């Protein structure tokens, strides 16, 4: 009964949290700059903004001009209004306006085909900042490769009849008459220009989907309980996510359905019951239908068994720790280079107990804050709640220090390694946090796996070392000693969770014994990936 109450409280707070978000749903989008020649990237905002608006969120579009931010009168259908959030994004679809010819040779070194080959890679970066607090609410970067789709003429390679076009071997012409070669190459490129652009536009579509999803996630931090479900032949084929839930999505986005279990102070979804897709935004809410991946049987069975069903956008990997929520510690990041600062920020973003404040876009944030407090926006709600960073992650040439901003002292420091390995433990130790065992899975006096809660999440965690804490008397002091008892690894498939099942890959008996003895057990990230014994 008590567990049930806790569950209700936790879920209520998650839903309530969403309702608060629903009050202020305007995002200022600051567009990146592209030259018109990069057609697909240049015209992207014309498609992206309507896509983002289709989620039921208003977007104010701004451009940069001479280092100033300007309201874009062409892309905005509404008058300028106060935005709660600022989104900056970057895309790189590697839009090459001047692709070179590629000479594909056979095994004998003879040129078989001459073609234009466009890069199939694309990447994006999105950062969303709460303008009232300067807090980063989303920072994500990713990318992918675009698979060829010959049916739709979306392909990355374009064979050309070069000898005919150039009247000779183009390599020979390039050697003998460069002017003529480049003129002819340009006409050849221009002849293919539309198909190149079509290909780049396909990559833009992928990037837009990722940006839209990243934005949706800031409004969907909680989960939505499904009510008034109607089954069709014992299958849950569709349902409505009511508008009152504060849910945000676009057509085609993926929704997962799941139940929730409680173990002690933790709530978590045991697994997905089905994959669904957003159909449309109706007057009652978002209409969701089962995708081809899911029959709707599992969700229906859970519903018939009397288990409440929940859903969330994109992932069913829901897990939280209940109980007293300690106040989040505000931190910021200073990197030696922009991309390294981003890497640190993205790691910190996954740490439960920290609140990440932005420094990179401070000027832009100040511009909006100052603008929204001016008389032009009188009567519109904008409550400036500046948050000072208590600690700052400072990247130096060789190390990263977590420093107390006010005192200037170093809380914890770690030597810099590839991908900032070491930061995970440094943050846990520095801020006196520990991973917690939720449940142990035992078999024949061995601990085979543990369900583990980590305040730093599992997104960068694969290999772990397990220690029992003993104490040694050294002179007149008693010092904690960490004695290694086991190696462990995550499955890698539950990376977005704060709770994950961790396999004990070596030392199952020692783990079991330490646990039964009541020894304090701590976990540390193994930064050198797989343990040596596994590589042998």
């Amino acid at each position, binding site marked *: 009964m008590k567990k049930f109450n806790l569950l209700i409280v936790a879920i209520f707070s998650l839903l309530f949290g969403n309702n608060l978000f629903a009050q202020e749903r305007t995002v200022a989008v600051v567009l990146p700059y592209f030259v018109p020649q990069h057609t697909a990237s240049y015209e992207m905002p014309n498609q992206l903004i309507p896509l983002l608006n289709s989620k039921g969120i208003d977007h104010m579009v701004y451009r940069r001009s001479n280092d100033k931010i300007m309201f874009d009168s062409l892309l905005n259908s509404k008058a300028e209004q106060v935005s709660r959030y600022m989104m900056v994004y970057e895309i790189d679809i590697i839009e090459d306006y001047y692709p070179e010819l590629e000479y594909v040779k056979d095994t004998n070194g003879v040129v078989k085909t001459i073609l234009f080959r466009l890069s199939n890679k694309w990447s994006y970066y999105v950062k969303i900042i709460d303008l009232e607090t300067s807090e980063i609410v989303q920072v994500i970067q990713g990318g992918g490769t675009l698979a060829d789709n010959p049916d739709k003429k979306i392909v990355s390679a374009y064979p050309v009849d070069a000898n005919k076009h150039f009247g000779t071997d183009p390599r020979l012409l390039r050697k003998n008459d460069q002017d003529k070669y480049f003129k002819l190459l340009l006409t050849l490129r221009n002849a293919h220009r539309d198909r190149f652009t079509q290909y780049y536009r396909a990559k833009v579509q992928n990037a837009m989907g990722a940006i839209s999803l990243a934005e949706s996630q800031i409004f969907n931090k909680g989960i939505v309980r499904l009510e008034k479900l109607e089954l069709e032949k014992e299958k849950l084929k569709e349902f409505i996510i009511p508008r009152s839930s504060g849910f945000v999505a676009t057509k085609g986005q993926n929704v997962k359905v799941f139940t929730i279990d409680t173990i002690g102070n933790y709530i978590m979804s045991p697994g997905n019951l089905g994959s669904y897709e957003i159909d449309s935004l109706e007057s009652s809410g978002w209409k969701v239908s089962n995708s081809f991946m899911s029959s709707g049987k599992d969700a229906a069975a859970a519903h018939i068994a009397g288990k409440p069903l929940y859903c969330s956008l994109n992932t069913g990997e829901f897990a939280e720790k209940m109980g007293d929520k300690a106040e989040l510690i505000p931190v910021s990041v200073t990197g030696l280079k922009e991309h390294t600062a981003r890497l640190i920020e993205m790691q910190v973003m996954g740490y439960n107990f920290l609140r990440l404040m932005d420094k990179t876009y*401070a000027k832009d944030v100040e511009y909006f804050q100052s603008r929204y407090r001016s008389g032009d926006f009188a009567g519109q709600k904008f409550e400036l709640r500046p948050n*000072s960073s208590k600690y*700052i992650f400072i990247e130096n*040439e*060789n190390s990263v*220090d977590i420093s107390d901003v*006010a*005192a200037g002292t170093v809380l914890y420091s*770690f030597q810099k390694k590839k991908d900032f390995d070491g930061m995970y433990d440094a943050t846990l130790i520095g801020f006196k946090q520990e991973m917690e065992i939720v449940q142990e899975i035992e078999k024949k006096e061995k601990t085979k796996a543990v369900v583990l809660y980590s305040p730093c999440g599992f997104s960068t965690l694969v290999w772990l070392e397990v220690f029992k804490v003993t104490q040694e008397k050294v002179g007149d002091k008693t010092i904690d000693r*960490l004695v290694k008892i086991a190696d462990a690894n995550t499955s890698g498939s539950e990376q977005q969770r704060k709770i994950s099942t961790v396999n004990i890959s070596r030392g199952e008996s020692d783990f079991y014994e330490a646990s039964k003895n009541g020894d304090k057990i701590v976990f540390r990230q193994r930064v050198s990936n797989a343990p040596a014994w596994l590589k042998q």
Partner: protein
Amino acid sequence: MLPPISTKQLLGLILFFSIFILNQTALISQDSPRKLIVFEMDLSEYSKKVNKSDWLSEEDKRKFIQPNALNTISSQLVNTYSSNPDFLVINKGNAEAIKKIQEKQGIAAHVDSNLIAEGKAGGADLLMYPKYLVLDNSIVIRVFDVKTGLLTCEASVPIDDNKVNANHTSFYTGVLIQQLNDRCFDVKYSLVRATKLKGESAKEVLIAVGNRQKVKRAQFLEVYQMVYEEVDGKKTSRSMTIGLIEIVKVEDDNFSLAEVKKGEVAIQKALLASTPLFCKLNVNIR
């Protein structure tokens, strides 16, 4: 990297920090952690030396002078002492970044949080200044008392010209930290107990030295006990080496396991007699 500074400039800096700290700091108890300012590694003399080397090509010179492993000594000092609860460490290299964010966050917030921090932390006491000295071809770390402006103590380690990579630097740093702990902060590395015995011989021992002291597997340490000698009527302490150990496993920040290479019987005998045993890195075996 810091530009070279003269003794006069350094004393000026000490005076500056003294005034800065005295201005801000409430009275603190003796037990409070000591505030330690660690300067960036001064490799100016090293750069000059490399530049003068006729036998090096310009590219090689650049390679030697570019941020090399020796530069990490400062950050390793920060790493070591910031995880020691006896110290509150300020990394001088962070000064600019912290100043910027303090200014941005405004005076009001700064003063409030500073008062709290000062109440907890107390005043700064020491400056730690690492520098390469061409004269001795060594790295020296000088520790100054902020209030008196006097040199408190120093640690130094000679370097080999061809041994300045990350591994060697880690060793140099380990030696330097050991000397600093011993000479400046009266911290000795204890041999805790034997973990493997054969008859009356200690085969493996647990030592209170770990990652925090920058030791690595396969490093050798001398085991010694303190004895007292009468010199000119005064009792003078002397460290008497009784054995040699090799680290086989660095367990954590504080402890390592070491195999006894020499003095198995003497070590076990001393342990049985409850004689405090200590160990120090052997600079001759790298």
